[in-house]
């Protein structure tokens, strides 16, 4: 992770250092060359004025409004579809599919051009793309189901062969004089800036249909992704649904190609969905968040690309999505790394505290021989006994004791004695009681030999919820008085040791 951030920082640095100065003619040469520049012939790296930033971000600037809006809508549609693609564990299928679209695009271009048109009707090109894209997915499934070639290799084959054929066909068109094929290459790298109103209407129309289908078929798709076999059993046409999902992926791919290009569209599909997964365990919420993240990436990316020179929209959108992904991976509230680290640490602290308090309580119990009702907290035990009560090092024990003191559980401790505060005593009694309840439960209900119980209880009681304790209490009511702490069902290891003579 650290490395990733360092690389990012390095790249940003290079970006900033290496800004060259040049004149407008070069820009035009570049545009003709096929590299993409969404921002117009601005060359210096001066930050745009704040009003411009506002205009673009608030969609007030007409020139960029279409682009930003369409990338946002696309983000919503791909967020929905991508979630199912991710949950179906078919993310890379989207990659194979998008590459397989190229021959269809070129084919339809050739057909339309030879029929007399300009060959650039978006609907036609998209139709062609869907055609070969779906064929490509079909071939992947066919190869992996009918031969020993695994699905990953099948995807690799379809991706490279279809794309290769597409490139060959495209080069044919380009090398033929009199054929204006400019614009075809935009499908590979994307060119959001070239979007016109007509494209926008088409895109948003299809995107709405895609999103609606995803929502309507949410439970069917969810079952397909979660448990295909069961789906089949209850009569769900899983193959049909699978094909439908792939068609939706193809549709998003095809729509997104114009904006981000067919290589990067897979990021649009996968990254927002994976980002959303860090924040929730609920499918509905995940779908909504995924759409939100998709739209955000599109909005930020397209705006940034419009505001800054030399920032191709597709690449910036993908990078924005990646930034959201990294942030979510670190800070996500459901599966983020930080959350897991913290909860792991909290559990460790909790376990340590419980071990320490229980050990103290057990020793008090031993020393003062009153197992039923211990109420006076100001009884102390010997530090040496505590140290030998469990297998812990002196360092870790004193660490636990110091924390206990901070938490007002330990009244005082020195090299000789340890004593509990009133609240510490209450807590220790509660913990010990839970532990014993659990032990007794295991012995009476699960036929577990008493000698094995202690370790099991150690691992379970720390995650025992109050409801669970109540359940245990009701299960055990017949056996023990609920107000008292039951005696330990097994002998302590230290019990046979002679007690220290000194008393406080």
């Amino acid at each position, binding site marked *: 992770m650290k490395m990733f951030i360092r690389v990012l920082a390095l790249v940003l640095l290079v970006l900033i250092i290496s800004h060259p100065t040049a004149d407008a003619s070069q820009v035009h040469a570049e545009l003709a060359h096929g590299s993409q520049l969404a921002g117009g012939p601005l060359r210096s790296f001066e930050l745009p004025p704040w009003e411009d930033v506002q205009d673009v971000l608030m969609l007030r600037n007409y020139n960029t409004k279409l682009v930003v809006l369409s990338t946002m809508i696309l983000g919503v549609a791909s967020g929905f579809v991508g979630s199912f693609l991710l949950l179906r564990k078919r993310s890379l299928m989207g990659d194979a599919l998008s590459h397989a679209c190229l021959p269809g695009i070129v084919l339809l271009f050739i057909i339309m051009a030879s029929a007399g048109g300009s060959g650039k009707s978006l609907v036609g090109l998209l139709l062609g793309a869907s055609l070969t894209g779906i064929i490509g997915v079909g071939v992947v499934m066919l190869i992996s189901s009918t031969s020993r070639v695994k699905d990953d290799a099948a995807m690799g084959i379809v991706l490279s062969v279809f794309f290769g054929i597409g490139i060959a066909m495209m080069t044919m068109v380009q090398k033929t004089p009199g054929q204006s094929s400019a614009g075809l290459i935009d499908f590979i790298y994307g060119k959001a800036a070239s979007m016109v109103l007509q494209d926008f209407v088409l895109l948003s129309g299809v995107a709405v249909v895609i999103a609606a289908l995803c929502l309507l078929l949410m439970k069917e798709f969810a079952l397909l992704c979660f*448990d295909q*076999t069961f789906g*089949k059993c209850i009569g769900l046409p899983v193959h049909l649904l699978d094909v439908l999902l792939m068609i939706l992926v193809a549709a998003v791919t095809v729509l997104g190609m114009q904006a981000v290009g067919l290589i990067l569209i897979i990021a649009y599909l996968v990254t927002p969905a994976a980002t959303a997964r860090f924040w929730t*365990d609920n*499918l509905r919420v995940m779908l909504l968040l995924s759409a939100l993240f998709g739209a955000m990436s599109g909005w930020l990316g397209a705006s940034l690309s419009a505001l800054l020179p030399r920032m191709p929209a597709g690449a910036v959108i993908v990078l924005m999505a990646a930034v959201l992904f990294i942030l979510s991976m670190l800070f996500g509230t459901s599966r983020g790394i930080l959350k897991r680290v913290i909860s792991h640490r909290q559990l460790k602290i909790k376990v340590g505290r419980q071990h320490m308090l229980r050990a103290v309580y057990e020793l008090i119990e031993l020393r003062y021989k009153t197992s039923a009702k211990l109420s006076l907290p100001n009884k102390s035990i010997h530090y040496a006994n505590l140290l030998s009560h469990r297998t812990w090092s002196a360092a870790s024990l004193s660490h636990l004791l110091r924390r206990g003191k901070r938490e007002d559980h330990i009244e005082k401790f020195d090299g000789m004695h340890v004593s509990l505060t009133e609240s510490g005593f209450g807590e220790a009694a509660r913990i010990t009681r839970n532990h014993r309840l659990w032990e007794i439960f295991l012995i009476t*209900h*699960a036929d577990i030999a008493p000698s094995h119980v202690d370790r099991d209880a150690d691992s379970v009681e720390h995650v025992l919820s109050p409801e669970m304790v109540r359940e245990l209490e009701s299960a055990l009511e017949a056996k023990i008085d609920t107000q008292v702490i039951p005696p330990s069902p097994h002998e302590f290891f230290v019990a046979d040791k002679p007690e220290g003579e000194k008393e406080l």
Partner: protein
Amino acid sequence: MEPSHSASHPLAIHDLTVAYHRKPVIWDIDLDIPEGKLVGVIGPNGAGKSTLIKACMDLIPRASGEISIYGKPYKKQRSLVGYVPQRESVDWDFPVSAQDVVAMGLYRKVGWFKPVRKKHLDKAREMLSHVGIEHLAERQISQLSGGQQQRVFLARALAQEAKFYMMDEPFAAVDAATERAIVSLLRELKNQGKTCMVVHHDLATVAKYFDWVVLLNMRIVDAGPTDLVFTEENLRKTYGGKLSLLDEAAQAMRHGKSHK
């Protein structure tokens, strides 16, 4: 022999063979399951126990054979059959809660395009309470223990409200409490006149749990009431020369019989 395909048999299999890469997994199976029994399917690893169940539900293609559920092909009788797949067959990291999974058993009733409503979720909760984990209904499934996950699957099958249940290793790697819960559930189903066919691997508990057994090792070694069929000789035939297993089995049998 009773006539096959009779409508009173939850499951009638005739001449079933399933092959994988030309190697047969189960071979020439003829089997009639009587109604209202708890049927254990027993056999060594790789004997084709799961394959048998999956073939019955048209989940895998068969090389030959006919299968009927209450006298008709499975396709027409889906609503009569409940299924509990192996726990490992799904990704438990999936972002759904326990009650969502149970509600999946109701999807046929919910219908296409329609969302899962409150009444369906209530029903799902009711099923969860049947298996004793209603309090975990809202819990995401990865946060459940193995035994609880198995119970969720059982609850989902219950939600199907079928007459005939097929369960693939429901007792695999579950805690003692879950095992007891499953057994009492099976008995409850039996008392309601339903039939359960359960793939089982623990010989020690066969006689205790099931009143009918199918001994399977690629083909049917024997099938019938446990008292008659679960014999040392049949186990020897089923498990072949695995002597240690045989001893275990013999012990198990004595153990099981003494329990009765």
